């Protein structure tokens, strides 16, 4: 049944994927025939050719389905078979129940399809048998299961809700953790997770208490803490203060008391043991047993290991311990009667052993004494021998040392002697050498003194002669000076002569030449002769360069030119200032009819000035004539300008020459 339903569902799913729209409009015409509901899917699968128009479908339905309702069953079965074959699923043979219920089963799937429309169509199953609900028999087991399930779900939900709410509110958290079982664990787990999420690096510290986690459970004993008892009396004893007080005086009353004594006994025993045998430790342990001895008195007495003879022997003590243990065991078993003989014999044997030990001790001590005596004797002899040998050795060594000492002394004395001699020789040599040196020094000094005396005498003599010579040289020098002076005088004379000659040359040149000639060479010679005579230089500098470059006219020439100039000046004599053409013409004309003056006329007019100048010129007064002409004004002055300049140049040259000649004369006079 399940399988069929599965198959169907598969088919449905297949069909559902491909044509989605169909269910929307197909069911409408079919709704009146719900028996075919299942069929439509299979029809879809089988015949994919169907574009079914609503009208045609209804017609088909009318023809096929409606008139024969019983047939509907058959086609279903056929359909089912076909579908199975199509899927190629090998089917198990259907059970008789299933076969019988097949029509029912076929109707059963109708509620199954998961589609919403399918369920809707199920409701009115007109053609099909009434569906007997198959879950009905299952309901009984399911109820319990469902109840369980619901309970589990509810509880899980409750837990979840509780945990969540407890995480949210503190109040509920307290309640939840307190009263709900495992609630605390659950909440703790979630809290821890949250904490880890927040702080991934940190160590996890669970909020749960250690007791809850089951760690470090400390059980405090019931007697823990302080008690009301006063325990200051037994402070020295220390260890057992807490326990009951009766044990303190346990030794004095021999109590048959059982286990308490075990702990209490050691205390009194220890002091006793310390008094008698302080050196042995093992004793401390047997003491309790020894103290126990009185306790099982009726069965068999223990051996007192302290009072026993030769108790100091460890062997004896061991034996006693063994026997005591045996006795105690026997006593504990209350088999004293049984082993009484054995115990007594053991005790006797012990006695015997002790005796043996004593005898052994005595013999050994005697032997030892003997041996010691012998050893003493031997040692004495050996010591004597040793002393003797030492004496011998010392003697021999002393002798040897003495010999060596002698040898060494002689050696040393020899060495020192030799050294002394050598040193004496050395000092002698040194002394002689110093003496020789001194002698040499003396000699040298004497020689030097001699040389000095000789030199001084020679020098004194030579000094006399040299003095005469020096006088002579002085005389010679004076003569030389004189000659030099004379030479200078001669030179100065020569110079002045040269100067005079040069001046004369210049003068001759100026006077002799009929036409003006340059006298540059003569002047240069004059300057050369004068060299650095300031006066001469100044005089030469005063001459205009034009004069010596072009030469100066002679006096006759000057007079000639003056006459021409005078004629011209006379023409312009009557001109007023700023005269025009008319006045010029008038002056020219009138000047022809003017009277000429003679002699030395007085007056500033042009005529008189000209006549005076002419007379002066004729007398040889160049300077005066020039001065007269220079005083002319206006056109007369302008016309006479050139002549005046010439005269001035001549005068300058003459003056300079006069100065130079005077200087030359003066120098010739100064020399004398």
């Amino acid at each position: 049944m399940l399988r069929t339903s599965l198959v169907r569902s598969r088919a449905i799913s297949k069909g559902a994927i491909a044509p989605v729209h169909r269910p929307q409009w197909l069911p409408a015409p079919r709704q009146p025939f719900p028996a075919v509901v299942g069929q439509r899917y299979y029809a879809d699968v089988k015949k994919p050719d169907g574009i079914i128009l609503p009208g045609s479908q209804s017609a088909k339905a009318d023809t096929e389905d409606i008139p024969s309702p019983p047939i509907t069953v058959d086609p279903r079965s056929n359909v089912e078979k076909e579908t199975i074959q199509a899927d190629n699923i090998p089917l198990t043979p259907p059970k008789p129940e299933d076969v019988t219920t097949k029509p029912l089963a076929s109707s059963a799937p109708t509620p199954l399809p998961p589609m919403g429309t399918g369920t809707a169509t199920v409701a009115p199953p007109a053609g099909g048998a009434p569906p007997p609900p198959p879950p009905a028999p299952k309901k009984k087991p399911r109820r319990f299961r469902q109840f369980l399930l619901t309970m589990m779900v509810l509880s899980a939900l409750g837990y979840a809700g509780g945990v969540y709410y407890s995480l949210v509110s503190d109040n509920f958290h307290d309640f939840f953790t307190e009263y709900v079982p495992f609630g605390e664990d659950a909440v703790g787990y979630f809290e821890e997770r949250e904490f880890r999420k927040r702080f991934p690096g940190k160590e996890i510290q669970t909020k749960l208490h250690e007791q809850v986690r089951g760690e470090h459970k400390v059980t405090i004993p019931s007697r823990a803490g302080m008690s009301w008892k006063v325990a200051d009396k037994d402070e020295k004893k220390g260890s057992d203060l807490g326990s009951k007080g009766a044990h303190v005086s346990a030794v004095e009353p021999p109590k048959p008391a059982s286990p308490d004594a075990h702990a209490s006994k050691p205390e009194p025993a220890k002091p006793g043991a310390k008094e008698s045998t302080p050196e042995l430790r093992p004793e401390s342990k047997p003491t309790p047993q020894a103290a126990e001895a009185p306790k099982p008195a009726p069965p068999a007495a223990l051996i007192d290991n302290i009072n026993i003879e030769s108790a100091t022997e460890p062997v004896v003590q061991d034996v006693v311990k063994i026997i005591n243990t045996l006795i105690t065991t026997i006593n504990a078993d209350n088999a004293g009667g049984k082993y009484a003989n054995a115990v007594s014999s053991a005790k006797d044997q012990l006695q015997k052993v002790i005796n043996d030990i004593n005898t052994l001790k005595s013999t050994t001590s005697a032997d030892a004494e003997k041996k010691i005596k012998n050893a003493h004797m031997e040692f004495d002899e050996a010591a004597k021998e040793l002393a003797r040998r030492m004496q011998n050795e010392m003697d021999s060594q002393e002798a040897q040392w003495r010999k060596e000492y002698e040898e060494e002394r002689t050696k040393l004395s020899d060495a020192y002697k030799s050294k002394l001699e050598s040193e004496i020789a050395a000092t002698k040599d040194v002394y002689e050498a110093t003496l020789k040196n001194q002698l040499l020094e003396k000699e040298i000094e004497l020689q030097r003194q001699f040389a000095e005396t000789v030199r001084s005498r020679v020098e004194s003599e030579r000094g006399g002669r040299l003095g005469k010579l020096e006088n002579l040289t002085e005389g010679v020098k004076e003569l030389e000076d004189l000659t030099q002076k004379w030479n200078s005088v001669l030179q100065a004379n020569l110079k002045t002569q040269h100067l005079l000659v040069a001046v004369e040359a210049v003068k001759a040149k100026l006077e002799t030449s009929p036409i003006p000639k340059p006298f540059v060479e003569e002047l240069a010679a004059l300057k050369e002769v004068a060299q650095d005579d300031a006066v001469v230089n100044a005089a030469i500098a005063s001459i205009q360069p034009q004069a010596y470059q072009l030469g100066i006219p002679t006096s006759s020439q000057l007079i000639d030119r003056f006459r021409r100039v005078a004629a011209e000046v006379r023409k312009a004599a009557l001109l007023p200032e700023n005269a025009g053409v008319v006045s010029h013409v008038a002056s020219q004309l009138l000047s022809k009819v003017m009277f000429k003056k003679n002699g030395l006329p007085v007056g500033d007019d042009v005529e008189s000035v000209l006549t005076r100048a002419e007379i002066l010129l004729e007398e040889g007064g160049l300077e005066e004539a020039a001065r007269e002409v220079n005083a002319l004004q206006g056109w007369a002055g302008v016309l006479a300008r050139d002549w005046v300049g010439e005269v001035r140049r001549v005068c300058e040259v003459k003056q300079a020459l006069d100065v130079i000649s005077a200087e030359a004369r003066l120098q010739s006079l100064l020399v004398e």
Partner: protein
Amino acid sequence: MADSVATPPASVIKPSRPMSEALLNDKWDRCLSSMLIRSAIGGGFGIMFTFILFRRRAWPVVLGTGIGLGRAIEECDNSFKNATAPSKDGLRVLRP
């Protein structure tokens, strides 16, 4: 050669400046020549005018020569008047 070298300075310097006594004569020469030329030019112009414009009348010729002469005299007078004063060539004139 020596003579040629010696002579030039004398010959060179002399004509550079006219002698002072010849100044007035030079002026007279220049005046007369200018008078002549200008009167001649004026007369020439007058003659030209008479022939071209005035039917061979005499007065244009006289007028022309008169103008030329007058102009020449004027120039001459000017030259005579300012000759004596020291020349102001190369000097700057400060005008008020």
